[in-house]
């Protein structure tokens, strides 16, 4: 059975029906459950759970501390390229959104410069990003970038276009240990509407990509939905099903979640289903209670005040001092196109101080090169 077939067993009509009938009693049962079922998760995501947010927060805080301790991992994104071959309505990198003069793909020397700058800040974990453009950033190019990054950092992940198992394996042999790939939305009609052209339009190929990555030896998987594209209560539930699916199919891999909320989109695009702060909090809490062992990532897309408040609700990793344009660290004034405007513009030192003041230990290194030096075997 594929995940897509499993997903079809939970159609939106079934989910919505649950949301309209769930009562407070079922929320209470979900809160006190030990290992939580998909039905428990529906209760926690439902409107009936709104009066229970504080109780959910206390439990989420406790569960997170038990699994991760009072620590927060720090990471930084490195944009390798902003060239893109897809037309995603919500994204600044989309082919139709900006001219060629602001597009660039870093050279190996420029990648090295970015790494050097971030390593000096203390980072040991990075995420390499490109647009959805195989022609500008082919797998061999990304593999080379992994090799360079591994000279500077103990952990290297990518957030790029979806690949074949062989391509993921190639990256693993060059030091990759993590793949982050958001499905954007699990609602297929919306997905097709948002991704009008380009290879990204293939919903199923993207949906199965994290499994291919794990089978190629990738140890850290990251999933997420772009909040604002579709009804969050439905998409968050499907996302959680995906995470559970991956946990049992890819049992050697860690499944992390991120919560990217659409905010600074191209002017012609308004998120059709905006997600409020209260929605976002309920979603993070419900997902934390359903997936107590999953790392939760929070990027600089969110404002400092909101990030600070989200930290004790289940967040275990934060980016800091981020730039979302290629070359943005070594050459911060470069005029290249950025993917989105970050809201938390605090320096790395400021975020570190904030984490410590909140009673958490900022963790720079949480991985070791010994785990990726051995070339992973092709599993299937």
């Amino acid at each position: 059975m594929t995940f897509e077939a499993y997903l079809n067993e939970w159609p939106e009509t079934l989910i919505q029906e649950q949301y309209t009938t769930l009562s407070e009693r079922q929320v209470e049962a979900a809160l006190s459950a030990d290992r939580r079922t998909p039905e428990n998760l529906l209760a926690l995501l439902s409107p009936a759970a709104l009066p229970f947010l504080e109780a959910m927060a206390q439990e989420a805080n406790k569960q997170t501390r038990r699994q991760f301790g009072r620590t927060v991992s720090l990471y930084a994104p490195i944009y390798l390229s902003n060239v893109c071959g897809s037309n995603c309505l919500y994204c600044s990198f989309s082919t139709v959104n900006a001219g060629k003069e602001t597009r660039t793909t870093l050279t190996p020397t420029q990648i090295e410069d970015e790494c050097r700058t971030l390593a000096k800040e203390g980072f040991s974990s990075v995420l390499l990003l490109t647009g959805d453009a195989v022609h500008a950033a082919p797998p061999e190019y990304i593999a080379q970038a992994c090799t360079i990054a591994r000279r500077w950092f103990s952990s290297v992940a990518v957030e790029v276009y979806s690949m074949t198992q062989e391509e993921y394996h190639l990256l693993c042999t060059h030091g990759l240990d993590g793949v982050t790939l958001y499905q954007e939305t699990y609602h297929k009609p919306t997905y097709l509407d948002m991704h009008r052209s380009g290879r990204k339009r293939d919903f199923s190929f993207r949906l199965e990509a994290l499994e291919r990555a794990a089978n190629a030896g990738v140890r850290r998987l990251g999933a997420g939905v772009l909040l604002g594209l579709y009804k969050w209560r439905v998409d968050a539930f499907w996302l959680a099903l995906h995470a559970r699916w991956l946990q049992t199919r890819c049992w050697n891999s860690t499944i992390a979640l991120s919560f990217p909320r659409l905010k600074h989109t191209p002017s012609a695009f308004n998120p059709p289903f905006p997600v409020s702060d209260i929605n976002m909090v309920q979603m993070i809490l419900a997902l934390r209670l359903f997936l107590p062992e999953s790392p939760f990532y929070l990027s600089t897309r969110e404002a400092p005040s909101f990030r600070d408040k989200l930290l004790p609700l289940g967040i275990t990793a934060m980016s800091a001092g981020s730039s979302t344009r290629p070359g943005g660290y070594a050459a911060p004034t470069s005029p290249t196109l950025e993917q989105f405007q970050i809201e938390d513009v605090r320096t790395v030192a400021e975020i570190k101080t904030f984490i410590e003041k909140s009673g958490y230990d900022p963790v720079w290194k949480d991985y070791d090169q010994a785990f990726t030096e051995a070339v992973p075997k092709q599993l299937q």
Partner: protein
Amino acid sequence: MDTNSPMDTFTIAGRLFSSRLMIGTGKFPSAAALRAAIEASGSEIVTVALRRVDLNSPEHQSILSAIDPKKQLILPNTSGAQTAEEALKLARLARAGGLEPWIKLELTPEPRYLLPDPIQTLRAAEQLVKEGFVVLPYIQADPVLAKRLEEVGTATVMPLGAPIGSNRGVQTKEMIRIIIEQAHVPVVVDAGLGAPSHAAEAMELGADAVLVNTALSDARDHGAMAKAFALATTAGRMAYLAGLGPQRSLAAASSPLTGFLFNQD
């Protein structure tokens, strides 16, 4: 034997220890909190995840700065490793980085419950012993595996009480009892001990030592909880040495069925 007397020490690989409480260092909110816990515990063995430290720049490592190498043995561990090869690599790096050749073997291929892989653990242990390491393997409470590890030359066995961080106590009691009964190396109950009473229970069973992390790092007062665990560990040890009375599962029947055999009239 008095537990406070210098006689109640125990030995791992020829090295004498008087504290039977070992401390894990992950999950603490700061180096100061960790230091408070270590000092209050009186612990002499402190384990550090190699994946969390950079031995090339130890001055920047909050975990290492909390440990006084004159008072505590730094016991590096391989947590995060999924295969024997990865654990071997970490152990060798630690030794090359200047740490003593002691290694707490943690091979946990699934990241959710962090349960140990018996096959990879045995393979890695065998090789590390050959290379001269003092090996302390984290294992399921599996008596046969414990004997196999002892045979390849590990310095201890460290069966789990419950999954790491679960605070559920000694759930594997029956198997730990058998491991202790059969062991010729120190048995250290590791993982799952969430309250001082759990540590006392493990020691009452006859464990040589216990290892605790989450219960200390998650406490409001790290030092006070560490002290409480130290006292409980000592109390459990004293009770074990003093000889606990047998547990009865049945009350003495008020209307005996076999009384007629002994009635004289």
